């Protein structure tokens, strides 16, 4: 069950978090302004190349789920607008949102994010809070999955749908929040963390040549996309 081979960090993993964040945010914002499918395809193509370089692999089932989701929203949009181009663009815009900034989350480890955030005026506690969300979201999501399993096992003894959601999911999740808070607070303080205290840095983050190249490539993709939207074809 345990992987004994680490996935090697790619050039995308080594980029400065702010570089990835900036590109993702700009692409998300630009996607909102584009309505030609081809223009959106340029942005989406760039993001898919980045995902491939980062060796982010999705299972066939995950690809199928994403495809199904995009098909559903595209179909619903078509039924509302009766415009194939509009519906396709709508789905592609979603696809850009699904890839643009989440790449940051998938290819940035919490330590890099803490360091990057500590270079901003954000309070240390807030930077740590963001790290904790990234770090513990998968754990709590797994706990929620187990709560749903426990609710399934209880069957009708758990009551109707509303009671199953309330007692079977919301109440346990509320307790989970408190339990996690107590344990993580203690763990942080036992390791010497205090929000107001200065910290040194094991491996300082530096933007390098890779960041420049990546930003330039992203800028080029954005320019091409904008040209396709407003000038070309």
């Amino acid at each position, binding site marked *: 069950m345990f992987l004994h*081979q680490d996935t090697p960090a790619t050039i995308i993993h080594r980029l400065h978090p702010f570089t990835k964040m900036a590109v993702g945010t700009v692409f998300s914002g630009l996607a909102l302004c584009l309505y030609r499918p081809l223009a959106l395809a340029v942005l989406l193509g760039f993001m898919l190349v980045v995902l491939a370089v980062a060796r982010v692999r999705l299972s066939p089932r995950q690809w199928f789920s994403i495809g199904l989701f995009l098909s559903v929203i595209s179909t619903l949009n078509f039924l509302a607008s009766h415009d194939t181009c509009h519906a396709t663009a709508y789905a592609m815009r979603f696809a850009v949102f699904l890839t643009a900034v989440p790449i940051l989350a998938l290819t940035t480890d919490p330590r890099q994010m803490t360091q990057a955030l500590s270079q901003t005026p954000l309070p240390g506690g807030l930077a740590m809070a963001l790290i904790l969300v990234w770090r513990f979201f998968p*754990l709590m999501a797994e706990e929620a999955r187990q709560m749903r399993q426990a609710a399934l096992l209880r069957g009708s003894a758990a009551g109707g749908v509303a009671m199953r959601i309330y007692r079977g999911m919301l109440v346990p999740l509320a307790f989970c929040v408190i339990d996690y808070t107590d344990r993580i607070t203690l763990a942080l*303080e*036992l390791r010497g963390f205090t929000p107001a205290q200065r910290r040194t840095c094991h*491996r300082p983050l530096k933007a390098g040549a890779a960041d420049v190249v990546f930003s330039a490539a992203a800028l080029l993709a954005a320019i091409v996309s904008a040209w396709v939207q407003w000038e070309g074809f």
Partner: protein
Amino acid sequence: MIRVCGLSFRYANQSSNALRHVEFDIRAGEMVLVSGPTGCGKSTLGLILCRAIPTLIPGDLAGRVWVNDKSIEGLSVREMARELGFLLQNVEHQTFTERVSDEIAFGLENFCVPPEHMATRIEESLRLVQGSHLLNRRLATLSAGERQRVMLAALLALNQRVLVLDEPLAYLDLEAQERFVTLMDRLSKKGKTILIFEHRRDALQAFAQREIYLTDGCIRPEPCVWSQFKKVRDYKAKSTVLAFEDVSFAWGNHKDPLFADISFEVKQHESVVLLGENGSGKTTLMHLAMGLAKPCRGRIITCDHEVGRVSVSQISRKAAYVFQRPDHQLYQPYVQDEIRSGSVDGDAVHRELAALGLEGLEKRHPRSLSMGQKRRLTLAAALARQPKLILLDEPSVGQDDASLAMIIRRLDDFLRDGGTLLTATHDFRVAMALAHRTIELKSGGMEQR
């Protein structure tokens, strides 16, 4: 090194003391086992030593504590952490980074250790725990035992003279437990003062120089170690209750199966114990039996239902699955309601509470109980439904010897009354007591004995 005088503590909103006038001295370099039944005050003592009580957890604290000849009164948890390293039970909630080297560096960064000194300290601490090969690994790829070693290295890197470990054996398989105990022995011989808070006295008594045994918040003479429990009786096995036929299973993204072509049967009145290292598939096998996961190949029949052809709730009408983590299965506001909901007769509440040492807790909120009590409560709720089959995942975690004996006696009655049991456990004594037969999951296959 550690001196405790007249230590008493009562949690806010509780009527009785968790600790009463505790006094002891621990010399430098000693390895001491702190044990006792569930609810005896071990964890409370640990939390006082690291200053979580009273800085994070309010209550009435009396008495004095000295560590390294200095009173700890008025110190924050962070200030105390310079002298005393505390390893919590669940390592998962103590890691904040992705890589081993970064995780060890996290504490060094918090204490403003100059970056140029960090690499040496990281390497040295990993060498001490025989984990140098883990330096550049991602934490998510490590086993439970390896992660624990990394967290120990993180404490050792801070050069704290005292180490306190809370239930370090709880989630380790046998091999990892042996490695851990040997490591603690070695660190103690190097001069570290070590306190281990643990139920598993059998695993640690031979190595600890001393034992402090707590009962009801007081230090008492330690009883003998239970090297074994009374075995469940043999009953005449009848019809098949659980059958796996050529079952294979692999996780979604993996090419190699977790296990392949597993076949076995469990009959009525039988108790079968599942053995295997962490990650061998014991919990997954139980999920498959209840229909919570789907096999890649093969057929599973649980209580006359073919899994996959009926819903999970239909299977759970006849089979009960007691999770490793009891919190997920507690959903009522009162202990008595947990047992009453789903029980088939009116006497179930009192009967099961009495059988599992939970009397007097009827009106308590289930989440206010200790981990051991919660685990017994989920078992009580399962027994109250009078299922044909119970699947038990690691019933011994958080249980002291007396509680374990109680659980085994109750399960013996369950078997006598026509029940069937499949238990996954790392605790060898529990396995010996419960097993009519064992199934060991190993290298993708199984061995029956």
